[in-house]
């Protein structure tokens, strides 16, 4: 089982490396100095955070399509508060509280009320997006403090920014917590078999709510970083991030039926997703190819994955059959395979 997890993330990672190499072969400028690769990584932070949050909800076998609006709302609130001269800490805390509340509401609807997650979060998505229109309207939040904006371009390790390094540490910590601690493994257990998890004493409902809260918090953090990176928030900010996050999770080897995959995979998938538009520039293709390539890559990966799973299931069945006939033959006294 463990080997399988590893293999699933490795596919995504190898795909990313192959992608960089192919672009490097087509246009050698891309690989020179490593700055462009760093730019790919730096540009991915918002996607990474949203995708990691989404990974939690997908691992427990549900989904959260309200993250895009959640991100946008937090970005708008934090941006407006900073614009009005409130202290940064207050603004951040306020943003995080919004994320937690959204997560709690989603968790309540899905885990306690047992409403299909896609539908419930679609509803909250609409409500949050509407609230964002109420806040921002046709105006834009543009006067974000310069110091906050500059923070996003400050680099620590070579060309890698502070935000990227923090994100990497955060993802690493979450991954360790999920794979090494008992509570961390609850998520995968619940996603694999919610009823069974309940029977062996894992609090399935509480775990599901927690997954949604974590998803909400990470979306809120992503919203704050979005505000800093973009420097402006419109009423459409964050629109469509939910679908890209789902795609990133799928690319990273997380099964949408839950219980299979890892947080690191989602992060790698997010880097692939956000790099595609950057890589197009080096391949001298117009940005119109962005969605086409994303769609094709996504479809190829999921279809191949499904076909391979089907094949391995058939092979396993065949192997079992062979083994059974072999033992039957031995009982009769003389069969060799």
């Amino acid at each position, binding site marked *: 089982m463990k080997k399988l997890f590893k293999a699933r993330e490795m596919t995504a990672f190898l795909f990313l490396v192959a992608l960089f190499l192919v672009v490097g072969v087509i246009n050698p400028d891309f690989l020179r100095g490593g700055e462009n690769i760093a730019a790919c990584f730096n540009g991915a932070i918002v996607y990474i955070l949203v995708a990691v949050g989404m990974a939690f909800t997908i691992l427990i076998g549900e*989904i959260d399509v309200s993250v895009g609006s959640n991100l946008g709302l937090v970005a708008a609130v934090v941006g407006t508060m900073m614009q009005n001269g409130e202290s940064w800490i207050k603004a951040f805390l306020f943003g995080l509280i919004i994320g937690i509340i959204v997560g709690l509401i989603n968790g309540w*609807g899905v885990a306690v*009320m*047992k*409403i*299909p997650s*896609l*539908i*419930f979060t*679609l*509803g*909250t*998505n*609409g*409500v*949050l*997006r*509407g*609230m964002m*229109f*109420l806040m921002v*309207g046709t105006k834009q939040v543009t006067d974000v403090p310069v110091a906050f904006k500059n923070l996003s371009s400050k680099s620590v390790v070579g060309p890698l920014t502070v935000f990227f390094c923090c994100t990497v540490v955060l993802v690493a910590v979450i991954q360790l917590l999920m794979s090494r601690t008992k509570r961390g493994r609850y998520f995968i257990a619940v996603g694999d078999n919610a009823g069974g998890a309940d029977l062996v004493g894992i609090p399935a409902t509480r775990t599901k709510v927690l997954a949604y809260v974590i998803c909400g918090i990470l979306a809120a953090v992503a919203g704050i970083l979005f505000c800093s990176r973009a420097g402006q928030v419109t*009423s459409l900010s964050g629109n469509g991030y939910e*679908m890209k996050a*789902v*795609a990133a999770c*799928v690319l990273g080897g997380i099964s*949408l*039926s839950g219980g299979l995959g890892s947080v690191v995979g989602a992060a790698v998938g997010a880097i692939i997703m956000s790099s595609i538009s950057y890589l197009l520039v080096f391949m001298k293709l*117009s940005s*119109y*190819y*962005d*969605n*086409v*390539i*994303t*769609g*094709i890559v*996504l*479809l190829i990966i*999921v*279809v191949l*994955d*499904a*076909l391979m799973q*089907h094949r391995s299931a058939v092979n396993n069945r065949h192997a079992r059959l062979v083994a059974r006939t072999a033992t039957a033959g031995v009982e009769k006294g003389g069969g060799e395979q």
Partner: protein
Amino acid sequence: MKKRSFSLGGLTKGPNFGWNMFLVIVLIAEFIIFGMKNSKFLRVSLLLNASNDFLPICFISIFVTFVMITGGIDIQAGSIVGLTSIVIGILWQELGLNVWVAVVLAVIVAGCCGALSGFFVAYCRVQAMVVTLGGSFLYSGLALLVASLSSTEMYKGLSIESESFRAFTKTKLFGVIPLQIILFLVMLLIAYILLHRSKYGRKIYLVGVNPSAAEYSGVNSRAVIMSTYILSGIAAGITGVFMTSQFSNTALPSHGSTLTMSIITACVLGGTLSTGGKGSVIGTALAAIIIGLVRFGMPLCFNINKQYLDIPIGLLLVVVVVGRAVASNPAVIAKVGKLRKKDAAGAR
């Protein structure tokens, strides 16, 4: 499924009858509330004109209901709308085809898009959500790519100079009823017959309730599943034609990009179970009209900006699903049953 319809009490006579009655009541309530606030709302010509705004949702959601009954979901229909629109524009402008030939070809393209996704879902056993997510990226991307083939700037769109095409959404039967209402009724009738009055419809339900039972009883469940995606693709294509004609004959790749949420909301509000096996065309159509009237009535009667309309529709969706979850909760059902018994005893 049986348990649920039992929980709704004696109201369930036909499939989804109780729920449809509830939707009709909501619809009447909408008319009363909006009508009392602003009598303009009740003007028939205004209402019929407003139908342009929400007919796209009706067209698509009716056929997405088919997909959802088989246990799948379709979030790519919105992007197929844009692709159809731009294909018509390109065929007309760059290849110089007759508009109506272009329309037919574009609808065929839309059907092929649906078929591709349906093939992956049915024959490769990939989850519908993922496939149609990939499809929505692919088809909206293709729309942009195809649009970049044209010589005109994309944001302006491709303007189609054809009177007969413009007439498609401007003609009014007997001077009142717009042609697209007739189109809607025809599509509704076709969908109703397909789903509720034909063998094919029974197969769709059976596949949704229990795919392996369907397979064992000789239903080619994969072909049935794939066909539902083709149907929803074609419906999206027709919507693309309609929207192109309606927006002063301009083909834009962005047509329909915002429809996804409304479509799913209409299906769910109409009583379709997202896990499959339950749903009705009439329910979805009623729900789509309810959503459409909210979109039309709120700005007219309460001066609410159109951009804020996501709030009431999102709330409506949440309230309905929470309400239904409460109503089907065994504890609540037991309590209601007890109250009824008490009433019966008291009446005696």
